[in-house]
């Protein structure tokens, strides 16, 4: 499944749909044709066959005047509505029978589309084009022999040397996924060539590395359902199809009704098409693991869920994924279309839908769309099908909970987020008692941890009293603490603390709306426990303690209050904490005050990063510090790490974008004397703002000097980013190695809950941020992930590199 969003693959053609309509007869006819073509196959009073026949006649008559428009519409439909492939191939077949030249032109057009898609790395478009061409063989538009030649050429890509495996994988996948459509025809007409093709594929599959498999699995174990590597699965499905003599029952084939007409038509031969040679800039789709959570035994009486290796399962799943891709921008439409699946009477549709949605939500390395997309579609499905969908979803939740011990950490997080969000839309109703056996387990075991983390998330969407009331008594130990600040300077025993008097003075000053300088004055005479030996002589832990805890406590009423406080006294923060050590001290004090309110800590750290009170590296080091080891396996801490990494990545991306834009404008300005396109909108002269497209002065042409400075800024940011990753990975290695060595010395099993969580977190950093981490792969390999490292840790790194190998 490609991670690319569908609108990135459009060729801009449908922008033309929205251009202001020029009033002209021609335009009206074009629009009507467009509408007719788009709508064919929809519910109608006439049969599909008669609609196709009628449409073919209409189009034939209009070929003279509207040839190119018709060509473009048909090609677009082929790519944008792959589930209607056979409808449009039939239409093309009928047109070809009436007008051989048009058939030839269409094939040429489609071939060009395929080539362009391959060069532009538009993988889904390419695959749908290929499939369309294959199905045209069934409609007697293209000769079987020339198609086989094309498929052979595609599979030849799998024999290339020195290219990424993901390239070879994709070409084989593309070929295999056409066979359900055209396998039968090829078997009847060119059995030997087909066999030969399959043997080549088999040889390739036997040799390919599947190191990535472990990284992409949702569960570590293969019971009850194996999680197959996607190519292995499809190959098994194709083999079974072959065993059944390519008899495939799922795909509708309208062309069969027109056989007598179509077989009179003359076929075209495809020109030679070769895969464009690999280029380093090409990004191929990543491999994936086929997600299965149901089999036919899970479904009640009724239509049977097709087996894991049946080609029907592949076709249904692909179709459902396509529906999601098509309609994900409109959640209500998406749910309606899913429930309106054309072959819904043949399968337990609710189960298939739920499985496909969770497949996307749990997709590794990351889901295609925002997590909330899936959550909200599931809610719509429950609304549209209230008598069955909620039960299926509950059953799915139960299954996921039972198998949670072997679920990978990234998916665990998503499951937690999804469940809390889902419950918040249904009054948090759930039969928690059914899960009370989890209370007997070690609190670090995934099951009680899941409940605890769900309740923490649910708390953020509601309030503490609610959570307390909804949980049955035995679950008391899993209920989160009340999210309140713990201000030691107003608590019992405050009298014996060194900073109390100053804290109280500070409260008075701040409440009297003092200036930042006044704050420094109040703190002035607090003693410094540290010796003034090292670099940051300003670093006075006690001053930071009193200031941070007092200020944040004063702002404890809401996020806005805290943000206002931070903003007003930003100067004091900067004065007190320049070095990383001092910044970590800020974090420690924030933690001391707010450790019962995880959400507050997340937003405070986000704000302090944004206002540059703390650096990303400080956050990373703080997370791995000894003081935080008690929090180490809690979800919120990793939320903080990931938001920190993301901030850094966004910063680097933005600088990169601005630099590219500036270079482009410079090039324009230098290349000719004509004015380049004016920038629109106001010039934004503060490029460090979080703008939609942070751009330098639009009205001025950038100078060489400016571009140089931007380059420097980008390089500095990239150095910071690299440093951040190095810190994080190094700390992981240290903490994991320590554990492994200690267990070895003590003769204990290393595979504790802590170990599983931690190695899962390491994996998660690689996978969630793989695009960014990739840039520094070789540095990581040279400096950190060296051969002498413990194999368990090294394995995680190798799985990551195998993703794009």
């Amino acid at each position, binding site marked *: 499944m490609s991670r690319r969003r569908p609108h990135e693959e459009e060729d801009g053609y449908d922008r033309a749909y929205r251009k202001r309509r020029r009033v002209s007869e021609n335009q009206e006819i074009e629009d009507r044709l467009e509408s007719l073509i788009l709508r064919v196959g929809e519910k109608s009073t006439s049969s599909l066959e008669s609609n196709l026949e009628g449409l073919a006649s209409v189009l034939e008559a209009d070929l003279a005047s509207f040839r190119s428009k018709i060509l473009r519409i048909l090609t677009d439909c082929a790519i944008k509505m792959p589930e209607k492939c056979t409808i449009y191939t039939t239409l093309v077949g009928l047109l070809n029978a009436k007008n051989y030249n048009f058939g030839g032109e269409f094939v040429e057009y489609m071939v060009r589309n395929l080539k362009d898609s391959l060069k532009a790395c538009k993988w889904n478009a390419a695959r749908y084009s290929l499939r369309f061409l294959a199905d045209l063989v069934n409609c007697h538009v293209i000769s079987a022999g020339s198609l086989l030649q094309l498929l052979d050429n595609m599979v030849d890509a799998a024999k290339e040397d020195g290219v990424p495996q993901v390239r070879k994988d994709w070409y084989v996948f593309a070929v295999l996924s056409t066979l359900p459509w055209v396998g039968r025809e090829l078997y009847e007409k060119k059995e030997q060539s087909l066999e030969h093709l399959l043997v080549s594929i088999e040889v390739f599959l036997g040799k390919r590395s599947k190191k990535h498999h472990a990284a992409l699995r949702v569960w570590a174990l293969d019971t009850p359902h194996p999680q197959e590597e996607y190519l292995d699965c499809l190959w098994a499905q194709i083999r079974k199809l072959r065993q059944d003599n390519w008899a495939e029952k799922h795909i509708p084939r309208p062309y069969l009704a027109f056989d007598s007409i179509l077989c009179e038509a003359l076929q075209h031969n495809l020109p030679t098409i070769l895969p464009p040679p690999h280029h380093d800039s090409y990004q191929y789709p990543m491999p994936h693991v086929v997600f299965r959570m149901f089999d036919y035994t899970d479904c009640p009486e009724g239509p049977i869920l097709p087996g894991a290796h049946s080609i029907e399962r592949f076709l249904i799943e692909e179709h459902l994924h396509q529906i999601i891709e098509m309609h994900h921008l*409109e*959640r209500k439409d998406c749910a309606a279309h899913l429930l309106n699946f054309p072959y819904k009477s043949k399968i337990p549709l609710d189960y298939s839908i739920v499985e496909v949605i969770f497949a996307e939500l749990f997709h590794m390395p990351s889901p295609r769309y925002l997590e*909330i997309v899936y959550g909200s579609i599931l809610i719509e499905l429950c609304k549209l099908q209230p008598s069955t969908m909620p039960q299926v979803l509950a059953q799915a939740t139960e299954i996921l909970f039972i198998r949670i011990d072997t679920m990978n950490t990234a998916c665990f997080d998503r499951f937690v987020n999804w469940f809390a969000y889902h419950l918040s839309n249904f009054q948090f109703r759930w039969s928690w008692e059914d899960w009370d056996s989890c209370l007997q387990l070690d609190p670090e075991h995934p099951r009680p941890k899941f409940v605890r983390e769900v309740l923490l998330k649910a708390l953020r*969407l509601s309030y503490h009293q609610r959570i307390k009331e909804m949980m049955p008594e035995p679950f008391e130990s899993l209920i989160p603490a009340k999210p309140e600040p713990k201000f030691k300077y107003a608590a019992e025993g405050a009298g014996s603390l060194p900073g109390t008097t100053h804290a109280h003075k500070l409260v008075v000053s701040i409440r009297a709306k003092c200036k930042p300088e006044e704050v420094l004055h109040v703190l002035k005479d607090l003693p410094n426990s540290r010796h003034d030996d090292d670099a940051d002589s300003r670093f006075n832990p006690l001053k930071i303690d009193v200031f941070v805890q007092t200020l944040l406590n004063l702002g404890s009423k*809401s*996020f806005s209050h805290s943000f206002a406080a931070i903003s007003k006294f930003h100067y004091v923060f900067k004065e007190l904490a320049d070095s990383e050590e001092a910044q970590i001290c800020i974090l420690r004090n924030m933690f001391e005050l707010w450790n019962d309110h995880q959400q507050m800590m997340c937003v405070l750290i986000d704000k302090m990063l944004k206002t540059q009170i703390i650096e990303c590296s400080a956050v990373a080091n703080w997370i791995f510090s000894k003081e935080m080891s008690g929090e180490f396996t809690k979800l919120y801490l990793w939320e903080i790490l990931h938001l920190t990494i993301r901030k850094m990545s966004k910063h680097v991306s933005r600088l990169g974008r601005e630099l590219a834009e500036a270079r482009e404008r410079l090039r324009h300005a230098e290349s000719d004397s004509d004015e380049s396109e004016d920038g629109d909108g106001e010039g934004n002269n503060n490029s460090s703002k979080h703008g939609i497209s942070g751009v330098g002065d639009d009205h001025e042409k950038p100078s060489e000097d400016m571009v140089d400075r931007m380059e420097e800024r980008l390089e500095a940011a990239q150095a910071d980013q690299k440093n951040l990753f190095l810190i994080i990975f190094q700390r992981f290695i240290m903490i994991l190695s320590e554990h492994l060595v200690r267990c070895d010395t003590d003769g204990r099993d290393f595979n504790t809950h802590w170990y599983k969580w931690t190695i899962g977190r390491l994996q998660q950093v690689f996978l969630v941020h793989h695009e960014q981490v990739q840039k520094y792969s070789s540095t990581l390999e040279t400096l950190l992930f060296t051969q002498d490292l413990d194999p368990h840790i090294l394995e995680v790194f190798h799985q990551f590199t195998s993703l794009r190998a």
Partner: protein
Amino acid sequence: IGIEMPTFASPSVELSSYRDRRFKGSAGELQRLLRTSSTLYVGNLSFYTTEEQIYELFSKCGDFKNVIMGLDKIEKTPCGFCFVEYHSRSDAENAMRYINGTRLHDRIIRTDWDAGFVEGRQYGRGKTGGQVRDEYRTYFDEGRPRRDERYQR
């Protein structure tokens, strides 16, 4: 055009029929701002919905600059609406697509485009200080009790 074709202009993201009558500028200007804004108005909140809950839900669509809670003009307490200022329009669009019409605090909340927060707009415009809609409401709403209802026992 058939609904199968994915288009950019999807219904969830379109402007509603509401226009702020106190907007200082032409209707065309208002329209333009609404079409480019990355600020959302969020309505039908419970009076007890907190900034924290808004943060948690709306961050699922992206990072935002600010949340401004709507306040009763007289009491300065939450009166059931707020503004969420996203950094980017596309994040705000996602909130329109996936959060509008779902529940927060058990209530179906509504999101709509806003021309941009201006000081003063955080206050209810009803005569009694809250939102106008609460003054015309004839049924009892537990999450949005009127002042007289709050003292009812």
